[in-house]
């Protein structure tokens, strides 16, 4: 790890005042230290926001769910109100990474973590994302079994944030604060696809801090679920994960949001799958039809065709789980 100056901040203002000259914010530190140990980022200064009390805490009330960006994944997973009314979010937080990581990792850091791609994360490889000279995405011609199967033409990285999947399906909003003031960005606008920028993965600008995440109150009849699939059952990075939010009238689906993690370089909604379910009775056949619609436009690479299959299973089973017609899948990552 490179040498750096460390500033422990107690207030948002203090942190904003320190965020210049290449300084990087540290929350739980899990992703940041990982990148620093491999020399992928070499900040001269770390601004520690971990102890800013105004960025901690969860409140769930009539006006929705307010999550401090320092809420840990463990806190989100264990919150009774989130388990009850924002089930997919509790499940996503509770099934990300390992128990120890969940105790340390924060929500802000989880949605801001850098993408997964072993070429990006290895200092041995030059690539466009690192401002490198090489014009190719190494994943296109190299080892790509874990890479994106959709929107992967420019860069085939995947964003692994488990919590971003339900947050996108629940129309969450992210509050950003800088010295210039505050702005709110919808989760649907939060991630920047590689076609727009290879360097910025999110709309968060230098000098901006995530100071809150807000999830609106679910409509009456809302049910949600999230499941994640990987190579192991105990803990693993996702190979396919699905977040499903349904507004139900008995078995009739009035509205549907289906979000896929690690299918594309950013978490994406599948409007094709949503269209199949909207206005229909949810049963095995409609769930399967939604799953295949979601994968219609997939463009898998040489080694990751299996993800197309895995996503169909994930979507099909998670739609039925959300609808209350199937038990949680024991082969999903628990």
């Amino acid at each position, binding site marked *: 790890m490179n*040498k750096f100056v460390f500033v422990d901040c107690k207030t948002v203002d203090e942190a904003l005042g*320190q965020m210049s000259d290449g300084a990087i914010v540290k929350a739980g530190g899990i992703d940041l230290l990982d990148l620093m140990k491999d020399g992928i980022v070499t900040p001269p200064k770390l601004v520690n926001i971990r102890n800013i009390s105004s960025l901690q805490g969860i409140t769930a009330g009539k006006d929705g769910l307010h999550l401090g960006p320092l809420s840990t994944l463990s806190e989100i997973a264990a919150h009774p109100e989130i388990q009850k009314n924002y089930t997919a979010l509790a499940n996503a937080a509770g099934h990300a990474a390992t128990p120890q990581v969940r105790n340390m990792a924060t929500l802000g850091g989880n949605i801001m973590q850098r993408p997964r791609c072993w070429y990006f994360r290895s200092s041995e490889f030059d690539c466009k994302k690192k401002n490198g000279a090489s014009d190719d995405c190494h994943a296109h011609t190299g080892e790509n079994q874990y890479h994106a199967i959709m929107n992967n033409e420019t860069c085939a990285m995947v964003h692994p944030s488990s919590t971003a999947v339900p947050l996108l399906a629940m129309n969450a909003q992210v509050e950003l604060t800088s010295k210039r003031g505050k702005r709110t960005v919808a989760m649907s606008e939060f991630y920047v696809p590689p076609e727009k920028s290879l360097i910025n993965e999110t709309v968060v600008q230098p000098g901006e801090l995530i100071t809150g995440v807000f999830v609106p109150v679910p409509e009456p009849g809302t049910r949600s679920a999230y499941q994640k699939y990987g190579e192991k059952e105990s803990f693993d990075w996702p190979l396919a994960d699905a977040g499903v939010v349904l507004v139900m009238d008995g078995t009739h689906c009035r509205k549907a949001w289906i979000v896929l993690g690690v299918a594309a370089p950013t978490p994406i909604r599948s409007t094709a799958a949503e269209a199949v379910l909207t206005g229909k009775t949810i049963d095995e056949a409609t769930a399967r039809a939604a799953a295949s619609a979601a994968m219609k436009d997939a463009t898998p690479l040489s080694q990751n065709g299996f993800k197309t299959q895995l996503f169909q299973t994930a979507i099909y089973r998670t739609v039925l789980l959300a609808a209350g017609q199937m038990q949680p899948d024991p082969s999903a990552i628990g």
Partner: protein
Amino acid sequence: MADSPKTTFSRRGFLKGAGVTAATTVIESANALARETKDALHSDRAVGPGSVPVKLHINGHEYSVAIEPRYTLAETLRDNLGLTGTKVVCDRGSCSACTVWIDKTPALACMTLAIDVVGRQITTIEGLSHGDTMHQVQAAFVKHDAMQCGFCTPGMVMSCAALLDRNPNPKLADVKHAVSGNLCRCGTYPKVFAATLDVAQQRRQTAGLVALVTEREA
């Protein structure tokens, strides 16, 4: 703690063609910045990049140690304080061998900066036993032969002991969940589960006996 030889390459990529000299200059200018702002509000909080004297609370003792901000808790425990019970295997958060408790919560010492735990209570595997008397979970690991090479064992014990503290009546699924991040390449899992469930059973019996005696005496 020398810089890894690989960093030169990626730094070059990251800093748009600037060499190591430029990277060093950035660090020095940040250092100068920290010095300049010394009198400003709260700037006394800016420390490093050189060694900083800190006090760490570990296993009920206070240790005074000089650390650079980039030292992880695992490195500080092992290399600076000689507390080598905490093992480092992956050094990337993926195996949980380095599990310690930070304020009683299991956390990864390899992904924690030592400077970040000033003021927190750290418990390592050395802090579980009392002198030569093993912690119940350690004793149960011996009884059930729950280790082979032993590399994952300190982390495994820390996870299981924390589970029993927060849930005195765990089911098999709870134990599996508690160690779901602790990788054991020797495959000792069934014995780890048995040892942990055994301690829960022993504690229930002791609690039962205590209740019985108290009831009789009352």
